[in-house]
């Protein structure tokens, strides 16, 4: 059994479905720090609301866009005379070269890295990327990590409202405001609040927000807010779908 014994979340804007739920805060849209992108900062904010004991803690992170890729590159390019940017680190002028921290800002595993370094988490970690269905398919992995660690922190974090994602998707998904933020769920074998199980069958997504990796967590939190058990269908952007079942205690 995968039980949930604690939760916390931060979002870039209000989520009406979650009104009245404790441990949920609105931060507005966070910007990059010197080292980390907005998604990692949302994750750290959500972690601090929960502040779990990190000894023997396993970490599973579902990461959306870091939110800092284009802005990190923006400091390092100018248009070459032939209309391209290629060269030894864009533009070939030393002060315009790609900054060393650009790599760190762009890597998506910066989210577990930031949590590990800031809060001294040294247990096992699984980092999955950019899909709504990742939560459903990660249930066996979470279950096995629980057998090794006793408790697992599941963190979903995304900053998909920045140019790096919106520019690509504007033709496919016009005018769809993207929710950013992070959700932390503390998982163990008991679960004072409820439990997660594989779902069967389909149902319309239960919380509307175009943030793939957040969608499972949003579904769980909205079911908690409504004090109900619920089948939560997770739809990938490019076709695949899966579901989980939230059993409310």
């Amino acid at each position, binding site marked *: 059994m995968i039980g949930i014994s604690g939760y916390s979340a931060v979002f870039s804007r209000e989520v009406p479905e979650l009104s009245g739920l404790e441990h949920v805060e609105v931060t507005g849209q966070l910007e990059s720090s010197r080292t980390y992108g907005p998604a990692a900062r949302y994750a750290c904010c959500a972690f601090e609301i929960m502040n779990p004991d990190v000894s023997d803690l396993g970490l599973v992170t579902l990461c959306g866009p870091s939110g800092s890729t284009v802005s990190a590159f923006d400091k390092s390019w100018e248009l070459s005379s032939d209309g391209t940017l290629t060269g030894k680190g864009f533009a070939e002028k030393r002060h315009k070269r790609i900054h060393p921290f650009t790599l*760190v800002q762009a890597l*998506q595993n910066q989210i577990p890295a930031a949590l590990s370094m800031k809060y001294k*988490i040294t247990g096992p970690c699984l980092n999955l*990327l950019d*899909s709504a269905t990742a939560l459903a398919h990660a249930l066996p992995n979470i279950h096995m990590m629980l057998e090794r660690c006793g408790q697992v922190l599941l963190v979903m974090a995304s900053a998909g409202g920045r140019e790096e994602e919106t520019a690509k998707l504007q033709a496919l998904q016009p005018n769809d405001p993207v929710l950013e933020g992070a959700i932390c769920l503390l998982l163990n074998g008991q679960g004072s609040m409820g439990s997660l199980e594989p779902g069967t069958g389909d149902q319309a997504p239960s919380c509307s927000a175009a943030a793939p990796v957040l969608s499972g967590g949003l579904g769980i939190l909205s079911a908690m807010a409504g004090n109900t058990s619920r089948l939560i269908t997770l739809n990938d952007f490019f076709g695949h779908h899966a579901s989980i079942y939230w059993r409310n205690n």
Partner: protein
Amino acid sequence: MSPIAIAEHAMIIPGLLDWSALRDGVSAITNLPETMPVAMGGPVPLEFTQEDDAFWPSPMMPRALSLARAALQALPRDPDRSYGLVLGLPNLFSETAYMEHTLLHRANPKAMELASVFSYDFPMNFLAGVLKNCGPRVRVDSACATGNDALITAWQWLASGVVDDVVVVSASAMLNPVGLALFHNLKALNDKRDPQASCPFDIRRRGFVMGEGAAAVWMTNHPPQKPKGYLCGYGQSLNAEKFVDLPQDITPMVNACRSAMGNVKEVAYVSAHGTATQANDLKETQLHHQLFGKAAPFTPLSSIKSMIGHCLGASALIEAIVCLEALREQIAPPTINLHEPDPVCDLDYVPNQARPISGNFALSNAFAFGGQNASVLFSGEKP
């Protein structure tokens, strides 16, 4: 931990080398064009074009995804089975054409539609379409430890019984101006024009040489024939110290290795992460001493990155295949270009020439940016 069979494997690596070339110490490190930020690299001599494939969805197809698909297509598998897919594919931001396109055309919806193939779950669901009969699927990213974490994810699916067959695919293609500049500006790359630039554990080492490539592995609860080997242990940990450098305190790395080894005390071969950075090779030597104690000098470890460079997100899965072949032939592949051993690197790195080994277990280590460690233990015969 119950062993899980690895039925088949395939790899597309620099120079299109195969296991026998790696065993024979052949180098795929070659000169890069002048337009690149560094002189040497390990390219895969394959070009992919839209004309090759009617299913190609965009002229901006990520090269890493093309390599992944090539590895998947080279993987023998049973068409009547249904597979889970674990894709080990780190973020694709570093492909030069994509980043240039995004920076220049970000305000043009029509132009940016071409780049949607870099978005969200497209890479995973595209490969699921190539695989056919695909059930559960996830995309794993732990930078240079991605391949091992992907294997661990697949093992957990198979051991829990949610699927009976899983294909693991991992790929990397950062051998381009932007990808190289990102690492070069961090001073992680060797920028000498030298065919022996990739020289792990040698006193001349001064950073890694970038490679590219892909690998694919079919893991199963029901092997159709004698399997290639078994995944029989794993360990993961976080360093909680530094993003780029390895930590002062290597306890988490030791814990990952010990977890992978379980009750196994002796291994025939260790596939080192072996990047040829100053810090990695020293820390990895310390780790080996701590793990094996008095047996450390007699437990061979080597780095195939000396021959193909560091294939980043694909490296661990390529090295997994090398471990299986090493166990099958009972031969450790060499660390080439090791002519002046660093005095602080005082182990048996199988210098320059393959060597017979004896035993049923091989340990493969991967230590990633972000402080993610993943170690896996393989056996040739079912333990």
